[in-house]
């Protein structure tokens, strides 16, 4: 299975404030009543984008026209914590996000995102604050995540070293972020392992 080699992602950024943004916030559970992931994009951050009582749009950054079309989500610590639902990264990806930059990620969210080919990279708090201020001052600023040079740069002249789990970086850059092909290639070894285990 030939997959795209994801070496660089560029786009305008949008900052979503707050620590520990959980998967229920990213995609409320009631929107998970579905048998495919199609159409999940429109429900991303639904309960914070729309006032629960009036249904009116809130002041959430995703409702701010200045950031319309932004494809790089910038967040704080422990982004994506909570449930293992792949509906969360799926909804972000279908909403139009190509990558997420945060101070840290919850592990299952991180793994799920990588498997979709949506890189999640971390920067320190100061770098995130700088990018936040830069896009706030000028939403047209382009942010580039370079997974080969391992840095995040911006058209406003910033450049920060990024962190990402090496196996995930390798998988993205080498175009093997969806591991199914490689897993299937090892069928003889899988069968040998199964034969060794008493309970299988």
């Amino acid at each position, binding site marked *: 299975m030939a997959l795209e080699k994801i070496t660089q992602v560029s786009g305008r950024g949008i900052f979503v404030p*707050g620590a520990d943004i959980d998967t229920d916030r990213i995609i409320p559970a*009631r929107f998970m009543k579905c048998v495919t992931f199609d159409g999940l994009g429109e429900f991303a951050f639904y309960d914070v984008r729309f006032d*629960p*009582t009036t249904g009116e749009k809130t002041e959430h950054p995703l409702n701010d026209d200045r950031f319309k079309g932004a494809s790089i989500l910038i967040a704080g610590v*422990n982004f994506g914590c909570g449930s293992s*639902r*792949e509906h969360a990264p799926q909804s972000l990806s279908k909403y139009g996000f190509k990558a997420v930059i945060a101070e840290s990620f*919850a592990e299952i969210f991180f793994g799920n995102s990588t498997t979709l080919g949506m890189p999640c990279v971390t920067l320190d708090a100061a770098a995130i604050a700088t990018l936040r201020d830069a896009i706030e001052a000028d939403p047209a600023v382009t942010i580039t995540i370079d997974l080969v040079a391992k840095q995040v740069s911006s058209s406003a002249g910033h450049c920060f070293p990024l962190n990402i789990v090496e196996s995930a970086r*390798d998988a993205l850059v080498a175009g093997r972020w969806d591991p199914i092909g490689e897993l299937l290639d090892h069928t003889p070894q899988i069968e040998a392992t199964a034969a*060794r285990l008493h309970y299988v």
Partner: protein
Amino acid sequence: MGKSLYQKVWEAHAVGTLADGRTQLFIGTHLIHEVTSPQAFGMLRDLGLSVKFPARTFATIDHIVPTINQDAPADPLAAEMMQALRQNADDFGITYFDLASGKQGIVHVVGPEQGITQPGTTIACGDSHTATHGAFGAIAFGIGTTQVRDVLATQTMAMEPLKVRRIEVNGRLRPGVYAKDVTLHIIRKLGAKGGIGFAYEYAGEVFDAMSMEERMTVCNMAIEGGARCGYVNPDQKTCDYLKGRPYVDMSDWDATVARWLSFASDADAHYDDIVRIDAAEIEPTVTWGISPDHGIAVSECIPDPAAAATAGEKATIEEALAYMKLPAGTPIKGVRIDVAFIGSCTNGRLSDFRETARFLKGRKVAAGVKAIAVPGSQIVAIQCEQEGIDKIFEEAGFEWRGAGCSMCLAMNPDKLIGDQICASSSNRNFKGRQGSPTGRTILMSPVMVAAAAVMGAVADAREVFEIAEAAA
């Protein structure tokens, strides 16, 4: 140097190393439910793949099941998900504990109940509370839907190894302090992201003394502390619990027991970190905010942002209190509640209802409080009903429901309305978790939920039910 259980299980299940450096790990037991599996089966069909070891996947239905008239969801989307699981189980030859089986329930209740969950095994499920199964000395991971596909197609998945943190709790729990309090206390101490990159090994006198069901309550919330999995080493109690259950091979019991116990961590095992906690410091614990690490003892006051140590902490407290609409710096005890919920994969087992019924007997739920009790499985429901526990709950003013996830999350008719406050025995107090975007959750043990139901407000169960310190 010896090995931890985590290391032993990992090594026994490692198929090989992938090009990106991750381990291809064999998943001996795969559990599925209706929410995270249909898309995986869809992917499987798109790729023209089949299920590699259909006998190693077990299905049940829990999230969307109504707890009144279980098999008749009024919601067409729920009915569609129900139908999809039936179809997928049939098409691929997977065992399905459906509503008619008498064995349906929350996946993390059903696995142990059936004896599918066993020591020294790897378990995966498209559900973050899969860590629950670690109570049996299994390494159990919550996974995403694409990984569900991988496990269906290959019985393996790509995985980065974890570090191991041993959390030792020694001493004796005080009366009125339960497994739920222990797990909330650990999360409070180590933080909601403290466990990132770790497997948690729960060890020490407190876990040794716990029943299997109590151990499940603790492991269930490992994920709330950021850990990918949590476990307790298998011992005689583990084996006794499993003996004779439907999926336990009884042909050579002694050999089975020996093999299971051999997975327990060696005395000189290597740990990447060790944390020690004194059981005596743990009090009945409740949450005040919107993250499971927002926990305090029931005797404490709601945090005050003015007293926060850092600007970040101040902002976090402010955000949480704005959502919870609770006054800073005042006692949590006495906060009025609207709803009381006992159930979920954390605290929806027989022992939870038994213990709560002991205190609830002869008491009444306060006027204006909606109280529901939801068994974690059909088997738990029947056991409770045989013991008359359902009657005790009903006489106290609780509604006694059918098995399912119910009010733990918002995928079935059981939901909070508006900004109702719920005293809940579940595991997550995230914004909107219980179905209303402004609904509020206070996590606590089932006995504490019962106390809150009786008082109509957050209360110390030790006072409400006169649970005295045992004479030393």
